[in-house]
């Protein structure tokens, strides 16, 4: 497993515990008490550490190569998934995947950006960076869900929409814009979850939702801290400073009413316990759905409009 730099002290304690266990087994000495103390210490330290991560450290967890991806969540939360492919205009962008599935026995439309865990997978999914065709596929599925009264769940983990030649030639900007506009017209509950990286318009293109949640160590921003550092701070190595300044983690985003809440991660981050992570996510979705189920199609549209209408800070 990949160990992040700030996690090294935990590894050291764990190595010590292993050593003690070995000595105890070899010499027959009773070291249980010492081992227990160390284990307790390691536990406390971990809890303390992960509860007080700096934005730049959360960034590392959000980008952890073993972090659960969209299909992990679908498999752990849903049954009977039927993937629906393609934009009907010549492409099936693999960076956005979507389809029908049952959540607690109820049919839903579930759509998300997809990241791989190996180089081969990452090439297939383009590192989670969608092309315009991916956004158009998503819109096709959104409209399908609205027509057949299926709630929509989106799970977002993307470093941004793909910056490439053909992406520009086929309208990356207008594809995202169209999703923002037309998501406002959907007549069903829409729930968006930022599960890792929520970078810029590429993330927002799936997130004009009635409820928006962020995983505990995920982030949501207008530009990657690296991009911000190189443009505004004129120094790409200032990414950690930019990450602080941009206020990209759940507590700050809640303060600005950008998100509705956060979803707790297992100690050490989502990759430490896929099942627990999926369970927490599913609970959040089901509870949001039971609220939104009370609204009429018109109320759902107004709720979504008013939510984004209020966002911003200005003087008057």
């Amino acid at each position, binding site marked *: 497993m990949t160990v992040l730099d700030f996690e090294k002290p935990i590894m050291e304690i764990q190595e010590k515990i292993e050593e003690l266990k070995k000595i105890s087994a070899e010499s027959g000495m009773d070291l249980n008490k010492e081992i227990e103390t160390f284990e307790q210490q390691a536990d406390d330290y971990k809890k303390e550490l992960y509860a007080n991560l700096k934005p730049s450290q959360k960034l590392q967890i959000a980008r952890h190569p073993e972090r659960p991806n969209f299909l992990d969540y679908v498999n752990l939360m849903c049954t009977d998934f039927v993937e629906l492919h393609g934009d009907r205009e010549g492409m099936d962008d693999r960076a956005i995947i979507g389809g029908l599935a049952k959540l607690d026995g109820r049919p839903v439309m579930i759509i998300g950006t997809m990241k791989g865990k190996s180089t081969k997978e990452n090439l297939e999914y383009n590192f989670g960076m969608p092309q315009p065709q991916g956004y158009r596929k998503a819109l096709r599925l959104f409209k399908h869900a609205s027509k057949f009264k299926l709630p929509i769940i989106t799970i977002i983990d993307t470093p941004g929409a793909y910056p*490439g030649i053909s992406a520009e030639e086929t309208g990356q900007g207008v594809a995202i814009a169209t999703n923002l506009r037309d998501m406002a017209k959907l007549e069903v509950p829409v729930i968006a979850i930022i599960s890792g990286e929520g970078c810029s318009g590429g993330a927002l293109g799936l997130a004009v939702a009635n409820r928006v949640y962020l995983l505990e160590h995920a982030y949501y921003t207008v530009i990657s801290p690296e991009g911000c550092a190189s443009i505004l701070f004129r120094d790409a190595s200032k990414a950690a400073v930019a990450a602080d300044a941009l206020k990209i983690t759940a507590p700050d985003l809640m303060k600005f009413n950008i998100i509705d809440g956060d979803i707790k991660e297992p100690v050490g981050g989502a990759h430490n316990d896929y099942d627990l992570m999926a369970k927490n996510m599913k609970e959040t979705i089901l509870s949001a759905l039971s609220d939104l189920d009370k609204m009429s199609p018109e109320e759902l549209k107004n709720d979504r*409009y008013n939510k984004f209408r209020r966002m911003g800070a200005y003087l008057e």
Partner: protein
Amino acid sequence: MTIQDWFEKRKEAQIQRRALEAKVEVEGNPDLWTKCVHCDSQLLKKDLEDNDMVCPVCDYHFRINATKRIKQLFDEGSFEELFKDIKPTDPLNFVDTEPYKDRLEKAHAKTNLDEAVITGLASIEGHRMAAAVMDFDYMGGSMGSVVGEKVTRLIEKAIELKLPVLAITSSGGARMQESALSLMQMAKTSCACSRLDDAGLLYVNLLTEPTFGGVTASFGTLGDIIVAEQGARIGFAGRRVIEQTIRQKLPSDFQTAEYLLKYGQVDVVSSRKDLRKTLANIFAMHNN
């Protein structure tokens, strides 16, 4: 050829001749002279201004600010500003190489504007409309909370008054100093566009040099008709970001209005001189 056309042609020929002469002889007061950034010709500033900031030699369209745009495009005296009192603040206490507050003050001092967009009601050849005009000189025309709010209110006003909307964009994208709040302006303005769409009112975009990022990916391209000014650079991702990602040089005309026309991304490319006529024509055909 009408008499008017003849005079127009003669005026153009004069400007061109003087510009060419100026190339040879550049003396006197340097404040009177400027250089075309495209063809390097020495130009009399006054000639350039008389020609709507289009180079008389090579037809290069200089970027113009919102005030000039309003003066040039709309019927004289028709522009009535709205929502002028919405002003920026610094919700994140953002500091990069310089505090955001200072940047806002400097932008104000430089442009005498309170934000990167001017919104109001106006007419072009008698056609009334609600108009938003962005100004690149104010912090790169970036969209923060104020730009988002003013554009949204303008659209809501247009729905109330049953007027068509013209959005003239010139923007580097989202205002980074307002982080996620500025990102959300993309959603806010686009949601407003959905209501404009539902109301069946015409929405026209005029994309001018340059239009990028969060503006391209929101209200900037949601028009029923998209007009781009000749030579304007328009895109989602910046040229440098794309070059770094794909590790190759891009063609020089990449992301120009003409390039996007070829790829079906804009309806019309118009020279500055023809814009009034082009837009009036479009608005005239949507009068009911």
